[in-house]
């Protein structure tokens, strides 16, 4: 079956999540075509990388008006391409833009969509989609009842395949006529007051909870995060107390994250936090209370005061990372 994927460009780079989607498409394609769509402005530089991830065709839709995200024009373009190419499966990253596009496109085509998929398996010749529900308290398996189907893949879960620089994808430029009566327009993108790393696609997250005691103490976590190139997350309690902005909240009413490394500092491990981070590959817990729930999911735990442990860790990491 042919698989259509959507690539995503941020800061003039193809996102890692797009490459994960391509990799999964290649694994599932089993010899059939992987067609990757790129929508934007000045796209020619990305073809070599997409090609090395095994795409057979790259469809480029370029226009100055597409340089910024527009859910209406992006989804109209994709609906037309899917109608023409008739892929069996449409895959894209399950981030904010991806999930928006996925819902709009699948509804227009009246096809099945599984959002935030964490695994795809072929079972009795049918695709089985795995998607955690109740924030991961339960894992659900789905099948599509439509022959065309779509899935948005959770970032940081699907491994990258080995690059093959010899693969030569066919590059096709599709024409595009900008619409002048769009119902939605991106007016501006406001920069954050301070540069901070976003948590949902971060490889390493240092996260803090009640144990931090006050907003200022997050400085300790920021110092550790800086050494590790990590993002800083927070528990619901820390967010509700106003210590951190809600966009950094990990858990059921915040974000579900799956980084390679999650360092929980002063977080007791309420169920609604655990479901947001327990799919992390490696979890480190630092807590004064040896009975804290967080230790049940940790690969490594240090029982101790975070105000002592975190600076020690920062120092130790500095030693090995600056050499």
């Amino acid at each position, binding site marked *: 079956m042919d698989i259509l994927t959507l690539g995503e460009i941020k800061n003039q780079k193809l996102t890692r999540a797009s490459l994960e989607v391509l990799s999964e498409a290649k694994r599932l394609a089993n010899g059939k075509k992987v067609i990757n769509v790129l929508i934007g402005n000045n796209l020619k530089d990305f073809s070599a990388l997409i090609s090395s991830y095994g795409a057979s065709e790259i469809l480029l839709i370029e226009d100055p008006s597409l340089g910024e995200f527009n859910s209406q024009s992006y989804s109209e373009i994709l609906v037309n391409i899917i109608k023409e190419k008739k892929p069996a499966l449409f895959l894209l990253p399950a981030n904010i833009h991806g999930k*928006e596009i996925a819902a709009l496109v699948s509804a227009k085509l009246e096809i099945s*969509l599984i959002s935030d998929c964490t695994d795809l398996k072929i079972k009795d010749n049918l695709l089985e989609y795995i998607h955690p529900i109740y924030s991961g308290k339960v894992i659900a398996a*789905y099948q599509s009842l439509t022959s065309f189907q779509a899935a948005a893949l959770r970032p940081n879960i699907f491994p990258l395949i080995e690059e093959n620089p010899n693969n030569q994808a066919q590059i096709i430029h599709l024409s595009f006529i900008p619409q002048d009566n769009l119902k939605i327009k991106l*007016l501006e993108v406001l920069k954050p007051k301070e540069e*901070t790393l976003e948590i949902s696609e971060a490889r390493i997250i240092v996260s803090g909870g009640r144990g931090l005691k006050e907003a200022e103490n997050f400085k300790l976590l920021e110092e550790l995060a800086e050494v590790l190139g990590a993002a800083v997350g927070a528990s619901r309690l820390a967010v509700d107390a106003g210590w951190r902005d809600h966009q950094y909240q990990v858990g059921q*009413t915040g974000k579900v994250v799956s980084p390679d490394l999650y360092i929980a500092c002063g977080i007791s491990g309420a169920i*609604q936090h655990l479901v947001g981070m327990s799919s992390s590959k490696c979890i480190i817990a630092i807590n004064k209370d040896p009975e804290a729930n967080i230790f049940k999911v940790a690969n490594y735990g240090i029982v101790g005061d975070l105000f002592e442990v975190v600076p020690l860790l920062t120092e130790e990491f500095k030693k090995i990372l600056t050499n």
Partner: protein
Amino acid sequence: MKIVVCIKQVPDTEAYIKINSQKTSIEESGIKYIINPYDEFALEEALRIKEKLNNAETAVITLGAPRTQEALRSALALGIEKAVLIPQEDFILDNFSSAFILAKTVERLGYDLILCGKQAIDDDMAQTGGIIASLLNIPFVSLATKIEFIDNSQIKVHREIEGFTEVFKIKLPAVISAQKGLNEPRYASLMGIMQAKKKIISEIKIQDLGINPENLIKTKLTRLEYPSPRSQGKILDGDLKEAAQKLVKFLREEAKII
């Protein structure tokens, strides 16, 4: 200005979720149901818009079991003027069919602005808003953290994405999904609760919308299971400096992450 809020009743965030013996659904007994937390931001925003504009009407709709009446009653207690229940009956619906039914209901009620939560915390699919928008052929912005009216036919919507804030200009009618940070939801007043008890919750049956949901189902849930538990890790105590050194060594040499 007609504002319709789509809400869903979901198990409380603290609820212990138990899978039934057929592995097809969860055990409902003992679960406390609440309004989906993200939908509370949508309800609050509808109320704030109504208070700001003098010509706004607010309605809340939900699709679900008879118990979802409570959720509608709570929305009325907050000050939403009209509530509609679409009884789900015995159908097992998926995201598309549910959103289709909601879209048809909204169409019947009339709408300028449709609000919902960014996702329901039960199935975590984050599809409903987008599907409704697509079916009604109107624009959609998810995860709004600020909604401003430019005039009666246009709004500005802010949403946070990877640390940045995107600001969209949107022509109404539109669907906007709400995220934490959009507002601070109010509590119902005692007066509101008393008044809500007397209000009528109207019902629209799926059949009355001219829909046969079985033809609309695109996705089938085949199985539920619990996630595999994480294996118990290693706990270090005692000398903290030593523990920190051991941990860094483990991350570098065994886990190979750093």
